[in-house]
């Protein structure tokens, strides 16, 4: 019974955990429940991914109303892949959060944090799994609203402003999205994504469809922080509680990328988006600006969290660059990087959370000589940083490989050159940390308390190990991404 209902349980278990946590109101129970729900979601996503790779796409009719009338949950190669990423990060952040949240939040807010964590997880999973365009909007808002709360829980008063700005921009983004969906509904009379895809060719070039494409592109781009719509991101990441930052950075923008992919390649289809309209050119141009400018800005940040936030903007640029290529290798690169960057940034922000706990802040002045008191943490940051650069033997390398391969096979050697040259800027900002931690003498503000608590460190290192593991064994990431890319380009059976 359970197996066939996994698509529903995948979302509903974390969603139901949230009100239960509020009912229980006890920090310890809340944490345990959040961990249990996150772990369940992770297990479910793995089972779903396995099932999809074995037997093809799964469709689940909510309330037994068959699609396209009812809401359909649909797991295919692409969404299964993203589900695994989101739920894996959720399952790692939940156990990590205990010590981090205990240190950063007042006690009466603890249960609230875990409830919102579950809600956010459910929202992101729901966005990924649903096969209904309007249902996607609802989950998008569930996820977004919980993110605003998570960010506003940050200790610094600037967290409030960051949350407010994100709320304004995020709501505009979601509303743009829902306008686009509305136009599509007017043009086709359906909201089911698969049904939309089937009916759109009849309405192909009408102005309503093109307007819908434009609205959805802008709306989702706001959510995924595509340059120049990324302005909310650095403050939001910098001032949110550490555990929340790690969770958001690893998942939120990635799920939005998934939505973009879903609409471009499933709903509108490559012939319209790629061949008839200059979408790839625009995406490529914006991605290049994002990569170069955000990487350069990252180099000059005085705060490690902000540095990593700007690096995220740049790394999202790599993902959209892959989408802009719109070839099999390009899309593979985009999907692989979506995963690899998710775990890399997750690992980095988890470790940085440990530093923030011990050092009080992650200002570069406080990081001087840190390797002496927190050797394992610093080694972890360095390894994950290498993955950010794309050094072979780390997950980031696999992404770079496919990006460059995609560019070369598309005959765009200059893009390949751009990808490798901008990796060098990543070397510059990663090495700012390495030099500060390893080569500088400890300053007056350096932490002396030693390593982060074992639970936090262990979870962070699981993530770091994943960064290295997926640099060697790519059978899950590359093959999963390749199947997803083939699905998007319509080559799969």
């Amino acid at each position, binding site marked *: 019974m359970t197996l066939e209902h996994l698509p529903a349980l995948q979302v509903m278990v974390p969603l139901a955990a949230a009100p239960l946590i509020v009912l229980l109101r006890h920090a310890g129970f809340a944490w345990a429940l959040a961990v249990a729900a996150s772990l369940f979601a992770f297990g479910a996503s793995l089972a779903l991914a396995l099932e999809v790779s074995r037997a093809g796409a799964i469709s689940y009719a909510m309330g037994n109303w068959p699609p396209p009338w009812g809401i359909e949950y649909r797991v295919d190669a692409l969404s299964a892949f993203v589900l695994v990423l989101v739920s894996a990060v959720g399952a790692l952040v939940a156990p990590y959060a205990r010590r981090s949240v205990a240190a950063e939040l007042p006690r009466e807010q603890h249960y609230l944090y875990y409830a919102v964590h579950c809600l956010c997880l459910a929202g992101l999973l729901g966005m990924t799994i649903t096969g209904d365009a309007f249902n996607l909007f609802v989950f998008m808002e569930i996820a977004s609203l919980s993110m605003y709360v998570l960010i506003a829980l940050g200790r610094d008063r600037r967290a409030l402003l960051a949350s407010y700005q994100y709320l304004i921009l995020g709501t505009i983004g979601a509303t743009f999205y829902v306008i686009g969906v509305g136009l599509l509904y007017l043009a086709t009379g359906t909201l089911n994504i698969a049904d939309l895809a089937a009916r759109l060719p009849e309405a192909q070039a009408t102005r309503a469809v093109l307007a819908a494409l434009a609205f959805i592109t802008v709306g989702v781009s706001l959510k995924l922080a595509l340059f120049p719509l990324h302005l909310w991101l650095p403050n939001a990441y910098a001032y949110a509680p550490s555990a929340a930052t790690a969770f958001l950075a690893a998942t939120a923008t990635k799920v939005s990328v998934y939505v973009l992919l879903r609409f471009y390649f499933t709903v509108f289809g490559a012939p319209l988006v790629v061949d008839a309209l200059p979408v790839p050119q625009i995406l490529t141009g914006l991605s290049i600006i994002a990569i170069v400018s955000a990487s350069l800005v990252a180099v000059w940040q005085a705060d490690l969290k902000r540095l990593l936030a700007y690096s995220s903007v740049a790394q999202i640029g790599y993902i959209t660059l892959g989408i802009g290529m719109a070839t099999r290798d390009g899309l593979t690169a985009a999907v692989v990087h979506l995963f690899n960057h998710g775990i890399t940034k997750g690992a980095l922000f988890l470790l940085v959370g440990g530093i923030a706990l011990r050092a009080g802040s992650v200002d570069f002045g406080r990081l001087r000589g840190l390797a002496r008191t927190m050797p394992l943490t610093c080694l972890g940051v360095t390894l994950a940083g*290498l993955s950010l*650069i*794309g*050094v*072979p*033997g780390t997950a980031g390398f*696999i992404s*770079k*490989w496919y990006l*460059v*391969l995609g560019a*070369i*096979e598309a005959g765009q*050697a200059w893009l*390949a*050159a751009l990808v*490798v*040259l901008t*990796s*060098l800027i990543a*070397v510059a900002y990663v*090495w700012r940390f390495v*030099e500060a931690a*390893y*080569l*500088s*003498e400890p300053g007056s503000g350096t932490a002396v308390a030693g390593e982060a608590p074992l639970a936090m460190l262990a979870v962070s290192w699981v993530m770091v190990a994943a960064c290295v593991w997926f640099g*060697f*064994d*790519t*059978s899950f990431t*590359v*093959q999963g991404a*390749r199947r997803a890319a083939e699905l998007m380009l319509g080559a799969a059976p």
Partner: protein
Amino acid sequence: MTPAQLIAAALLVPATGAAGIALAGRWPNLREGVTLAAAAALFACVLALLPTVLAGGVPQLFVLEMLPGIALGFRVEPLGMLFALVASGLWIVNSVYSIGYMRGNDEPHQTRFYVCFALALAATMGIAFSANLLTLFLFYEMLTLVTWPLVTHHGDDDAKQGGRLYLGFLLGTSITFLLPAIIATWALAGTLEFTPGGILRGTASGSVIGGLLALYMFGIGKAALMPFHRWLPAAMVAPTPVSALLHAVAVVKAGVFTVVKVVVYVFGVETLAGIRAADWLPAVAGFTIVAASIVALRSDNLKRRLAYSTVSQLSYVVLAAALLTPLSVAGAVFHIAAHAVGKITLFFAAGAIYTAAHKTEVSQLDGIGRRMPWTMGAFTVGALSLIGIPPLPGFLSKWMMFQGAAQAGNGMALAVLALSTLLNAAYFLPIVHAAFWRAPREGDAPHGEAPWPSVAALVVTAAATIALPFASAVPLALARAVGG
């Protein structure tokens, strides 16, 4: 043990050694014991592989598939065998030397030093035995990263600056040129396996191949082809054992090893000989040889002079490989071994002088040969070998290169070889002259030899330099096997 197990052991012994060193960090004697044991065990493993390779066998080990169609795999062919032999053999000597040097100079962070050293050797073995370009690239980058803490060992501003140059040049060239070259090769040939005769034949036009060759040659920054040589002098801020084993043997030889490997097994000698797009390479290598020699001549700092000498000697290998005749390729391979034993001796001597007398400049060395006869004697042997005085090994490799150049009918190469031999003599012999025949300066504090492990090590390498021509059957056989 089967050959495959031996390959795995050669990779794992230094890696587990590094872990052991880290664990034994609190007890210096135990720690150094672990280092020596790992070095000896590694050399034994490599040596045990030798009979199979000499008999024409090709031991293989495939670990897993990293990317669809590209494995993380290892295959021992003659060139890698020679490189592994040289690096692992000299690690033993260098470990002995390091003990004397690091303790004699009271260096900080000694555990980190030995750990990184062992990891560097593991990476070197990975490079030597790699079966394809991806595996090679993986260990190539790993070698850069694990040697960075060694370069910046002192942690002061000089070290930071040197470290930045080191990392900037090596990572920069490898990421911007080498990685795209590898990916382009994959896109063109559909394979990255090292194959005798090359994998690129007939896959692209001559100009594309030529462009690819340029990407490879400048992308392999460790080969220090001008203008990407600046990292090597910058790396001299490291403690001398690092300069000796890594920046005279393991790292730089990894560079020229990769060059030879790419020329022979990726492009294929015949493919390159068939197109004119590769003609620029001997010219660039020749320019590097002469220009670096001139810079060496003008450098007063001893380690800097040796570093530029290394830059110049590395380009011998590139030049010889680029001549594309069997004899010159064999010469290139043999020169990897010949230069290794010679140059490590010179660096050992420089380190011993620093330890005993705290002198770093050539102009301070007047009369030092009387106080440190063993050290300067060994230095003389190394210098004579690198100049190419018969019957020392440097002569043998140069002789093969001369013959190869003559076969290829490349007058420019002949001229460069002759000119650079004179320049070699010009920058080495004055040191020897000053050390033995000039009177010591006034006011120098009296001193004797460096600590005994250092002296023992440099005497051993000098003896190896002298012995190499008499025991040259093995290296020559391996070299000829590569040259075909």
